[in-house]
């Protein structure tokens, strides 16, 4: 997902211009010299200027590559497996959150949460022997904390909790 600075900088210029334009077309408050339009105008301009600076490499020399903390003796990290669609795996967590939004009311908290936990856990390399009990127990534990103790209204759906 690493993009060249010229691409991210240009995106910021476009975003800044859009924000400034969006601010510009907002209606003013009658009888008042400044209204809701001023702040987006200032931010949009600032963002566009930053974008230009990034495109031209200003401040790039300050950037430090992330230093990895050395591993302790006898530890070696495996190289990441590579595949064509491997990068798309990163989108799994936000996709599961959206699944929660659409499914929780119909399926209920316990079932939706169990599916989320199972999928995330296996995607991170857990065997079914670990993922299955985790998916079966953790939704109840979370429900106990949030639903019962903190009184967050969690949907019952297909499988209501015993409490």
């Amino acid at each position, binding site marked *: *997902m*690493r993009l060249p600075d010229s691409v991210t900088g240009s995106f910021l210029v476009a975003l800044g211009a859009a*924000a400034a334009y*969006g*601010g510009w077309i907002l*209606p003013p*408050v009658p009888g*008042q*010299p*400044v209204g*809701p*339009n001023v*702040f*987006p105008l200032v*931010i949009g301009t600032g*963002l566009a200027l*930053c974008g230009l*600076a*990034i495109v031209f490499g*200003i*401040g790039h*020399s*300050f*950037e*430090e590559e*992330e230093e990895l*903390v050395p*591993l*302790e003796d006898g530890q*070696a*990290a*495996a*190289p*990441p*497996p590579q595949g064509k669609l*491997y*990068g798309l*795996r*990163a*989108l799994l967590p*936000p996709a*599961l*959150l*959206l699944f929660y939004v659409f499914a929780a009311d119909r399926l209920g908290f316990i079932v939706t949460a169990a599916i*989320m*936990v199972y999928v*995330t*856990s296996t*995607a*991170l*390399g*857990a065997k079914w022997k*670990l*993922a299955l009990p985790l998916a079966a127990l*953790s939704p109840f534990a*979370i429900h106990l904390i*949030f639903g019962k103790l903190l009184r*967050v*209204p*969690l949907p019952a759906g297909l499988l209501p909790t015993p409490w």
Partner: protein
Amino acid sequence: MLKTLIEAFALISTWEVIIAMFAASVYGLVIGSLPGLSATMATALLVPVTFYLSPIAAIATIVAASSMAIFSGDIPGALLRIPGTPASAAYADEAYAMTRKGQAELALGAGVWFSAVGGIAGVLSLMILAPPLAEIALSFSTFEYFWLALLGLMCATLVARSSPVKAIAGMFIGLLVSCIGIENPGGIPRFTFGITDLFGGIEPIPALVGVFAVAQVMRAMLTPEPPPLPRRKFGSIMAGQWKLTKLYHWQMTRGNIVGIIIGVLPGAGADMAAWVSYAMSKRFSKEPEKFGTGHVEGLVEAGASNNASIASGWVPSLLFGIPGDTIAAIAIGVLYMKGLNPGPTLFTEKASSMYAIYLMFIIANILMIPLGIAMIRVAAYILLAPRSTVMPIIMLCCAVGSFAIGNNMFGVVTVAAFGVIGYVMEANGYPVAAMVLGIVMGTMVEQAFVTSLIKSDGSILPFFERPVAAILAAMAIGALLWPVMVWVWRKVKPPQAAAATGR
């Protein structure tokens, strides 16, 4: 005074207050250590419970829960690089680097010890310095507030490891996000694109959970599981803390002072205190190159600072009813509800209640040490669990926690969206913490900016006319322009340097 003190002791030494305080402490520690649940949220969720308590017990729960939650936010920050509360975000990277170096005890011990010291320093400030400090803060006009808020925003660029221009860009993105909604000078829908859920704006907490927690789970999907930390029993949490206190006594004192000052200023709370102190610690350190690689110095200063600001945030709240931060804002509501109306008369008519509040703060901070150590020992087992068991539960906490803020699913959508934004930003060297700071402070900056512009009839000149405003303006503009100035200076310098060596 002695009589008042004895009366205050009598007020707090009832079973109701003792039990309420202990339970609220444990509750605050647990909520603060759950990623995504802030100290403010912990306090807000307590308000319904306070209906059933006496005034002193009600205040005791708020004092204890907020102090504990601010400290325990450090625990997941240090163990998982996911700050439990925004106030821990400034130094979560640093603490996590220490854990990876095998210094988890030192990082967490510094968290609990310097938080307690900072908290007690904050109470002393509340007792001694409250009236004069509040007077100074009250003499500030919106012009000073605007520059002060801008300076606070600039702190994000000082602590960033990436290019300052990218940090400033991140901050602007955050400010842009804060523009969304109808909470603006005109009260009209702004950048809502007709979506009613956006009318209320983007809440900082789901945004923060998204960029810090969800983005972390996203990264975990692509990176191989790091080798497990050596299986060993956690050593003494407090070992070495006295040595650190002696070594970094000046940093600790400075953190306390900065935390107290920031706490007193209305609107600027523990989050800003931690950011400013961490930035100052790096700026004035003798070993700035060690920052970011697992160095305890910044933790000492920022940890002391955020807890100091909690107590001092009560100064403007108690004296004038102006909240120092969001937690104090909730506390004011409870004070009114319980008949302890904030105002100068509180100090004369209900002096014993005031002293009771001071005493409760001191007790809460002393209690933080044993309870904090116990909490660390329980939480440390997270380190032994494989990533495939911890990450799914964090995901679930993100979904439920963000839903709980407004009891609507839009919070969960926000978390997902900000997860993607945070992931992309971090992958490209844009510090996400700068964006979070922009979102948190955006409304305050806009209010100060627009109110000042209305007062000055659209003129920019009054922003620089008052002496304090002029000094703050010079500092803020200097911080904004320094990357460009250094860039120009470096462009000009090489030919001269070459000429000098040629001679």
